[in-house]
């Protein structure tokens, strides 16, 4: 910092009058941001003198400070806690599914548009059937993505398979887009031996190396710094790809969110942060979560480029994520996207959201702002889709999912040995011992253990 001060001509002038130039010049080896400088009483004196001088002469003076020139001002002005207007929300399709004139968005081909739509519909039907399966006691837990289909599918559509996905838990649509099969979804929810994660986690905790999708953890926010580290690696390896991580409005309160944004900016990591601001974190409304203008404004505080998008407009999501990806990779920078949306379903099957929010509110978002209907109308108006294809799609997908569920239900659970594997790369002696002991116990008391878990 001493050097920075020395570089500013005005300040050098002041300093020479104070007779400290020699001191500053003689210490060029001080680290640029040495904390000692802040404590240097000479600098304190300098500030006061400078202020006095500015008063009488020129107000257009700058402080050369790490990060660039900082203008001085004689005006004592606190930065307002909020801007006059809220940050606008980018959208391409209006409520009537009409393209907004003069809007800029990356063109989407009919094939991609139709796949976006069919995957959104598939996600909706899957949610409906799995949710029912939970209600019938066939799976222990479920959590829907209803209302957030566009964020899921359209963001996935804007990425390539080389882009690493680091999810929260309400983004199964990204996996669906990447070709994770309905059977694979069902196998995970039924914790059977075909589940790639070996039945160890609750339903909806998907993960797939093949699909470049880190395994979901229930812990909120913890995935965000992982995405930054992974993105840094991708940059170092010169990959034409980025990391993409998803989180909720609630997740933005965790310390990990702040760590991740700051790290991403400082490490110049090609990572896209996609916040699904769906208004609720279980029963907690965003007014109890933060008092900023949502999440998007946090970007600037960390030096991260950011945009707010209508999360229920698939075209806007697609365009924004495409542009973000381009910037992230070619400019080595993180991008923050805040998608405004609504959690139309209950938080999970453990929740009844009518206890804490008005049914009218839910219904309005479900009916008037459904992202799937909005996008469907648009592709129909383009002549890419019609009532017939719609009917065919819905009955085909329904059958596929029902079949997948029936099949998943009949498959055995993973074998007991999988209880001990993967804790480490190989079994340490304590686990070998416990494995043996457990097998003897099972032999003595077979009635204590489920029949569908092979030994």
């Amino acid at each position, binding site marked *: 910092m001493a050097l920075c001060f020395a570089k500013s001509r005005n300040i050098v002038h002041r300093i020479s009058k104070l007779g400290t130039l020699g001191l500053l010049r003689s210490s060029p080896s001080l680290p640029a941001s040495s904390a000692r400088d802040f404590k240097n009483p000479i600098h304190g004196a300098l500030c006061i003198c400078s202020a006095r001088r500015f008063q009488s002469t020129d107000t257009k003076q700058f402080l050369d400070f790490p990060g660039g020139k900082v203008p001085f001002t004689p005006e004592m002005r606190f930065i307002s806690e909020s801007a006059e207007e809220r940050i606008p929300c980018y959208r391409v399709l209006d409520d009537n599914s009409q393209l907004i004139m003069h809007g800029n968005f990356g063109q989407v081909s009919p094939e991609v548009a139709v796949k976006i739509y069919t995957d959104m519909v598939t996600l909706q039907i899957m949610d409906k059937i799995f949710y029912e399966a939970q209600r019938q006691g066939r799976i222990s837990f479920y959590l829907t993505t209803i209302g957030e289909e566009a964020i899921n599918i359209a963001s996935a559509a804007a990425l390539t398979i080389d882009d690493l996905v680091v999810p929260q838990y309400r983004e199964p649509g990204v996996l669906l887009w990447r070709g994770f099969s309905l059977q694979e979804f069902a196998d995970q929810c039924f*914790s059977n031996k075909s589940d790639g994660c070996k039945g*160890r986690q609750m339903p909806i905790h998907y993960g797939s190396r093949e699909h470049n999708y880190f395994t979901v953890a*229930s812990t909120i926010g913890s995935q965000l710094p992982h995405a930054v580290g992974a993105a840094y690696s991708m940059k170092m390896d010169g990959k034409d790809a980025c990391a993409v991580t998803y989180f909720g409005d609630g997740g933005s309160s*965790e*310390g990990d969110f702040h760590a991740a944004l700051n790290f991403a900016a400082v490490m110049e990591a090609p990572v896209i942060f996609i916040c699904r601001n769906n208004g609720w974190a279980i029963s907690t409304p965003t007014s*109890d979560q933060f008092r900023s203008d949502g999440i998007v404004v946090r970007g600037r505080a960390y030096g991260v480029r950011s945009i707010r998008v209508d999360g229920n407009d698939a075209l806007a999501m697609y365009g924004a994520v495409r542009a973000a990806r381009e910037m992230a990779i070619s400019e080595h920078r993180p991008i923050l996207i805040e998608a405004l949306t609504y959690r139309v379903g209950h938080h999970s099957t453990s929740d009844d959201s009518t206890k804490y929010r008005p049914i009218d509110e839910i219904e309005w978002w479900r009916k008037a702002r459904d992202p799937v209907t909005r996008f469907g109308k648009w592709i129909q108006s383009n002549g890419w889709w019609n009532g017939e294809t719609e009917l065919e799609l819905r009955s085909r997908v329904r059958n596929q999912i029902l079949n997948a569920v029936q099949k998943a239900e009949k498959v055995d659970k993973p074998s007991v040995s999988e209880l001990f594997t993967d*804790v480490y790369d190989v079994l340490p002696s304590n686990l070998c011992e416990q494995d043996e002991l457990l097998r003897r116990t099972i032999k*003595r008391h077979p009635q*204590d253990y489920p029949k569908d878990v092979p030994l």
Partner: protein
Amino acid sequence: MAAKLRSYGRGLAPLLWRRGLSNASSSTMIQQQQQQQSGKSMNLYSAINQALHIVLETDPRAYVFGEDVSFGGVFRCTTGLVDRFGKNRVFNTPLCEQGIVGFGIGLAAMGNRAIAEIQFADYIYPAFDQIVNEAAKFRYRSGNQFNCGGLTIRAPYGAVEHGGHYHSQSPEAFFCHVPGIKVVIPRSPREAKGLLLSCIRDPNPVVFFEPKLLYRKAVEEVPEDDYMLPLSEAEVIREGSDITLVGWGAQLSIMEQACIDAEKDGISCELIDLKTLIPWDKETVETSVRKTGRLLISHEAPVTGGFGAEISASIVERCFLRLEAPVARVCGLDTPFPLVFEPFYVPNKNKILDAIKSTVNY
């Protein structure tokens, strides 16, 4: 299942009562008799809720906060509190555990009772630094000029049959390694209310783990009045002469079933509820082991580095010559908590029963 556990709840009450008659001092006996008479049948979350009502009612400087606390909490423990005491004293926090505990420390340091809820014990780790480096050392590092003794952290812990990695953990041992905080775990509704009131009013920061399996399932008579149960006092909840069993929280009901089965085989088990894990009541355990000559400890957390290891080491130090068999530990396995393998992972009744038999027949 619900019915089964409810019957446990009822089943345990007479046992507690028997203990009251046989071992308690006469004053607690009278107290317990009165409690028994004025009690109302309720489950564990209602008992917690009642304790929180009492604290907010009796202490104007008490606050209750945490994620989703306003609408009653995901386990309903804070139901009705906002309506009764207002949103300045009972409130939602942002989703940030380190914030919740750090805020609670500051609030407590200003002479308040800060009652913080961590939604699941599995999510207490983001607050680990605030608990271990801040709350636990606040008094010591300031030469007792400052303290955050008014802080109580409540967190539901333990297996629930479908919780997987992140809704099942029993992290108590981590906190037992931290001088400066207390760790308390109740076994039943009546215990939960009396112990929670003690924790909140104790002049030290306390981590209070609630057995979430029992929130609805354990039902027993709970006195409606304001009563406190002592911390750092274990309780012999079943007397016996052949072996001592030590446990806490939800595990006690499993251990008790094992004791009943062992009795059919002519083995007389003494069962101790430790209640406070630190600072723990070594004397009660030692006295019992001196009588029985054998010790078995059971907890859901992984066996390695679990609090059972500490109990075992202490009792071996104190009772080495009196022990007739190695101390047995029947605990969770050294793996993350697994979803489909939960029945294999947990220290169930027959695992305990086998260990009782092999220890007695050593």
